[in-house]
């Protein structure tokens, strides 16, 4: 009896081997549909990944229902969950490539690094909104990568600009700014820009790194509030850590209306995790609008109502949900422009050109007045500032960008350093 077990084991081994064969090849789609792809993550950063993915899916469903085709060509969004794993991200990319995608939205910084050489070789334009490397905004060195939203550099200049406005002076002499960041490459990215601005405006600047996994920052916060006595905290955190930083700073009596967070730590879930009353006053940078007061949001709501479904549970986390809408919409828009400019068949090269012609694409206020050019793949680095009032985020400062010349200077330096090395 016991021995027959191994017979079935043998069968199981063969069956496992067989499943991969058909699975690997049965992914090709019919030719007429234009395929675009998105990489998502449901496993690691669960406060962000699934929400963004839901935004993407809802927008695609809405778009199919209201617009449906581009010149008669249906557009299909192919989703692939990489679970925040670099190897699986490359596997997803290969699957996407096999399906013939013409545009891709990536997800996660290490994964974007890993597939960047492939994207450049295969000429499939990819958007990396809010992560990836900031120097990819240079369309000359990275022709197929589109940060397509304010990079950390632009967020840095924008935050200093905002501080200047609140302080009411351009020269920030005597103002102490603490930069609280997640200690990884993404966290260190804007430091060069901060240093340049520091030279120019004379503020005091000190950095406070939070080691992974970023849920323990008592020491850093004590340092900021008691020893350094910062006037402002600029926080660049994500995942669980933004809420920890808010709670810790609150506990130490830091006025949270002088807390300015970068894009990955300032949405509804982050303040909810820290405590809605506690977080009152905190400021956050956004590259898409918050809330539901846009045509596209109303359209999605109506679509759900018509189908008799309840709104998805992620609907209320508009910070990340609206980003998902944007990631999908900008890809469809690029494909539409590619069709308009070059006609079928759509290829990656044409879609790249489509991206570079995007302008006046604000989706009724959800998006800033982006202008993409062959040189500027960031679209101008526009941000908004929102403030949490205890119940919802209120708009504090409308779309603006700041000190582009500083960013260009930093870009030139980084590009030069990279070239020298290679």
């Amino acid at each position: 009896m016991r021995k027959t077990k191994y017979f079935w084991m043998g069968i199981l081994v063969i069956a496992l081997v067989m499943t991969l064969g058909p699975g690997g090849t049965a992914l090709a789609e019919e030719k007429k549909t234009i395929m675009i792809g998105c990489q998502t993550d449901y496993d690691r950063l669960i406060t962000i990944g699934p929400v963004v993915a839901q935004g993407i899916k809802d927008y695609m469903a809405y778009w199919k229902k209201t617009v449906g085709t581009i010149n008669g060509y249906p557009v299909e969004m192919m989703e692939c969950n990489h679970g925040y794993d670099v190897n699986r991200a490359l596997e997803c990319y290969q699957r996407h490539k096999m399906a013939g995608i013409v545009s891709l939205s990536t997800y996660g910084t290490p994964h974007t690094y890993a597939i960047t050489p492939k994207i450049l070789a295969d000429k499939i334009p990819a958007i990396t909104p809010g992560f990836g490397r900031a120097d990819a905004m240079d369309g000359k060195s990275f022709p197929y990568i589109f940060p397509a939203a304010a990079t950390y550099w632009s967020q840095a200049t924008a935050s200093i600009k905002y501080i200047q406005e609140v302080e009411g002076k351009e020269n920030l002499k005597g103002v102490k700014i603490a930069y609280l960041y997640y200690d990884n490459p993404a966290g260190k990215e804007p430091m060069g820009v901060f240093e340049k601005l520091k030279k120019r405006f004379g503020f005091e600047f000190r950095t406070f790194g939070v080691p992974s996994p970023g849920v323990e920052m008592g020491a850093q916060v004590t340092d900021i509030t008691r020893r350094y006595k910062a006037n402002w905290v600029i926080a660049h955190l994500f995942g669980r850590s933004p809420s920890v930083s808010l709670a810790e700073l609150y506990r130490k009596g830091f006025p949270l209306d002088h807390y300015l967070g970068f894009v990955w730590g300032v949405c509804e879930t982050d303040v909810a995790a820290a405590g809605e009353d506690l977080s009152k006053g905190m400021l956050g940078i956004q590259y898409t609008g918050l809330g539901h007061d846009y045509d596209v949001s109303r359209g999605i709501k109506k679509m759900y109502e018509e189908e008799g479904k309840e709104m998805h549970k992620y609907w209320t986390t508009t910070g990340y949900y609206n980003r998902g809408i944007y990631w999908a919409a900008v890809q469809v828009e690029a494909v539409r422009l590619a069709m308009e400019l070059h006609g079928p068949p759509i290829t990656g090269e044409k879609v790249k050109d489509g991206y570079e012609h995007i302008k006046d694409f604000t989706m009724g206020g959800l998006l800033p007045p982006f202008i993409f050019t062959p040189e500027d793949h960031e679209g101008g680095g526009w941000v908004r500032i929102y403030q949490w009032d205890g119940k919802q985020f209120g708009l504090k400062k409308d779309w603006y960008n700041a000190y582009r010349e500083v960013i260009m200077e930093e870009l030139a330096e980084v590009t030069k350093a990279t070239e020298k090395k290679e």
Partner: protein
Amino acid sequence: MINRECGNYKRTYQSDMAIFPVPLQRYTIIAIVLIFYLIFPLLANEYLLNLAGLIAIACLGAVGLNILTGFTGQISIGHAAFMMVGAYTAAILNTRYGVGFVLCLPAAGIMSALVGSFFGTPSLRIKGLYLAISTLAAQFILEWIVNHWKWVSGGAFSSIITKKPEIFGWIPAAALMEAESMMRYKYYIIVILLGMGVVFALNLFRSSVGRAFIAIRDNDVSAEIIGINIFRYKLTAFAISSFYAGVAGALYCFWYEVANYESFTIIISIDYLAMVIIGGLGSVLGAIFGAIFIGLLPIVLDIVGTWVGDTFFGGVNTEIIANFQVVTFGAMIIFFLIVEPEGLNKLWKNIKDYFRVWPFSY
């Protein structure tokens, strides 16, 4: 595969000592080599080549870790960090000093071996879980160094884009034209190195060094009493294991053409440990099984899950599938370990033993 030992007489000591003493076993190996070196790369598309290449790299790393953990009994949770050392060594030599790919590989291995033996020194005084913690420290220290030492990491992005792997300046012309050929070319490099690594590992345990490793694993006190220099052999085990890791890391870096420290985090270290445990501690084949299992299972589950969802439930929410995968992945690991605590290798052995006398089991 299925070994029929009947009528297999040995006339010399040499033939008795062969790695594969049974003829059928030899033919099976030849068949496997033919399949993976000739038939598979020619038939496979880019997708499968990518999958196979990454798994082959993982195999090399896992074989290396198994030498340390499976054969010498020293737990290491810093394997990914040693791979990272290899990856960055190769990337720095390749991009800044113009060293060719072929020389980068041994250089990465040696650098990694040096770092590995340095972090292996605590093993002389501590063992078991204590050693696990000290190698865990190695993981964090090395990650921190790469993250903060600008010269190593190459600036704020902590990633170095390498050149294409060339063999003394030669790359097949087709590989430069087409992504699939490039992948095929890289795949060949990897499987050839994997073959060398596997043969070396198999032979290592037929030598006095390998026997010393096993003696240390089984009981280090008695090993010392019978005259084995523990200091020397433990460090040798760390060095050899890290050499494998370094070469695997360098291959990984050239596979992606970028060295990025976030691909070598603690989670990857644990993955490697899982590979050798699930595959079977103390067997070369087990490490390979484990690497294939860990590398393939999430993808198979993804494909199967999506297929089942689409076919039977008319398109299930991706979120449910994603969570289902994670749960199944964990459940499968537990299942296989309960069925056979000694790993996939033992399971495979049992299957072989069953068919060895099948259908006449009595």
